[in-house]
């Protein structure tokens, strides 16, 4: 088992820098999710840890060994690819055994390890099939099996579930989590799906345009997003952003209404409010002119604009709400649920 340390990591293709000075410390046995929009450099970062991409500058260590110049095979890692990358001409058994065979492990031990992994993943009855004779979910398991048998120090996952249907994805997500906890292997998991990231990760690294926006537990990211980007990316439906002016903690919205924040910011700010934190309240300061309701069953999403402005706003209300389209409804928010960001830098302004 091992920790992973990334120090001042830079990746450039020619003159184009795609990862900028990434720092991160991953503890032994942790599952870290790297999350961010398409093209932000998630795969690149993961592949640098795997040794499939060269490191432009900076340092990666696994355990206490710097691995910058080690071949992937010498880093004691295993990787699960998005398209599984199973060898099509080998049976499931051979696919799982291939890496062990190259490492000249005895036949008996290979057999035993393959059988153990197959038991864990419940793919025992497919061992003699070719990958093309398996369903997507089964292939996914084989790809995991191939990683497990190696008994590596680190698991790397690059969007391993994105080829599965929604239901299977939820199921496999849980299984990956259980498996990782049971084996206690340090893991890095790449996804662009924020729900997957929230449910799976001990900690999340949010990447945007090659910069680390925030690195913390899911709850930290939800409660105290460090930037506008993180605030908008984490949580569903995503946070409402309203331009406002702060004068010593009093936040004045575009329509003149004001709410009291918990800090002493001054000047132009962006106020962030999560839809689920808007509470229907006859005397609330936030007036919303309602355009439409979306019924989700357990709750109702109300879409509207801040009355008197054209700032879109969404509120999540408990139960069924149907009446009121075209009317103006009032809401209030607890001061601790107001997120204040600097309007120009997008950085969170702390209390």
């Amino acid at each position, binding site marked *: 088992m091992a920790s992973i340390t990334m120090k001042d990591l830079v990746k450039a293709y020619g003159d184009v820098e795609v990862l900028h000075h990434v720092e991160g410390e991953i503890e032994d046995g942790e599952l870290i999710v790297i999350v961010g929009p398409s093209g932000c450099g998630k795969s690149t970062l993961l592949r640098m840890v795997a040794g*499939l991409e060269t490191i432009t500058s900076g340092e990666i260590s696994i355990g206490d060994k710097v691995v910058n110049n080690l071949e992937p095979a010498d880093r004691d890692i295993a990787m699960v690819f998005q398209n599984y*990358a199973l060898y099509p001409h080998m049976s499931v058994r051979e696919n799982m055994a291939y890496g062990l065979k190259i*490492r000249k492990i005895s036949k008996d031990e290979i057999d035993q390890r393959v059988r153990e992994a197959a038991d864990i993943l419940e793919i025992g009855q497919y061992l003699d099939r070719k990958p*093309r004779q398996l369903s997507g979910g089964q292939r996914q398991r084989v790809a995991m099996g191939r990683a497990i048998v190696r008994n590596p120090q680190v698991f790397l996952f690059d969007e391993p579930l994105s080829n599965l249907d929604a239901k299977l994805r939820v199921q496999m997500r849980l299984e990956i989590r259980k498996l990782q906890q049971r084996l206690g292997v340090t893991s890095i998991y790449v996804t662009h799906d924020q729900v997957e990231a929230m449910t799976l990760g001990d900690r999340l690294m949010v990447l945007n345009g090659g910069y680390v926006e925030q690195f913390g537990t899911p709850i930290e990211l939800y409660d105290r997003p460090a930037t506008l980007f993180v605030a908008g990316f984490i949580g569903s439906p995503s946070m409402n952003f309203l331009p406002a002016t702060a004068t010593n903690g009093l936040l004045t919205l575009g329509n003149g209404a004001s709410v009291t924040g918990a800090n002493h910011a001054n000047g132009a700010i962006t106020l962030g409010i999560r839809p689920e934190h808007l509470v229907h309240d006859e005397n609330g300061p936030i007036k919303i002119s309602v355009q439409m309701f979306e019924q989700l069953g357990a709750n109702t999403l109300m879409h509207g604009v801040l009355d008197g402005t054209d700032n879109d706003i969404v509120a999540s209300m408990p139960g069924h709400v149907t009446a009121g389209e075209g009317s103006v409804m009032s809401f209030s928010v607890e001061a601790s649920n107001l997120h204040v960001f600097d309007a120009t830098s997008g950085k969170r302004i702390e209390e």
Partner: protein
Amino acid sequence: MIENRPILNMVSHAVLIFGVIIVALPIWITFVAATHDPVRMTQAPIPMLPGGYFWENFKQTLFGGGLSGTESAPVWRMLLNSLMMALMISFGKIAISLLSAFAIVYFKFPFRMGFFWLIFITLMLPVEVRILPTFEVVADLGMLNSYWGLSIPLIASATATFMFRQVFLTIPDEMLESARIDGAGPLRFFWDILIPLSRTNIAALFVILFIYGWNQYLWPLLITTETDMTTIVMSIKQMLEAAEQSPQWNIIMMTALLAMIPPVFVVVAMQRLFVQGLTETDK
């Protein structure tokens, strides 16, 4: 198309049967000619039905001196020469083009694309164009009248290199990456992954190259002077001219018949893989 129209069915069958006749008739005549005695073959209406001399002709052609009155090698010897040449050409071509495609696709080295285009340009230089310099080189190396001389000048193949390059390009990068993580070095990856994945393409190419090698005419004609080294395709032509008397059709046709057998055998044996190799896209 699933249609059930009797007239259309009949027409299409008629067309197919007509096609088969056109293709098969010369072969039938060859066969018939190989079963008659020499005299019968010189008489006016050529026979259309087999005669009774098949085994005699067969024995005389394969093991005897072939044509009477000439000094040519027995046909089994020619078959052997042709077989050696065709096999060396096809295996050589496949081995070399697999390796060069491997280098071009998977390794980064200076002037990589330069080398690729260099190989590509040789497409414009078939043996016929470079025949004199090639002859000179082969003669200087003392490879006249040898299997090496017959095959080596024909072995480099831009077409096959190009084809394997395309095949390798369709294999996803992740295959290489996951092999690297599994600890496979370049040669191991080549042998354990690339070759099995190109299996059907190799088979298809083998069929084509074997027939290409088997049918070589000009080159063997040029560099073999000893009767022991002649190949069957060139000898058939020589048989027609060699004898002073009129051509001995029964022997010549029997030789032609024998010359057909190995390519037919290769095609039949490789048929399944061959078709897969040409149609399969699933990697």
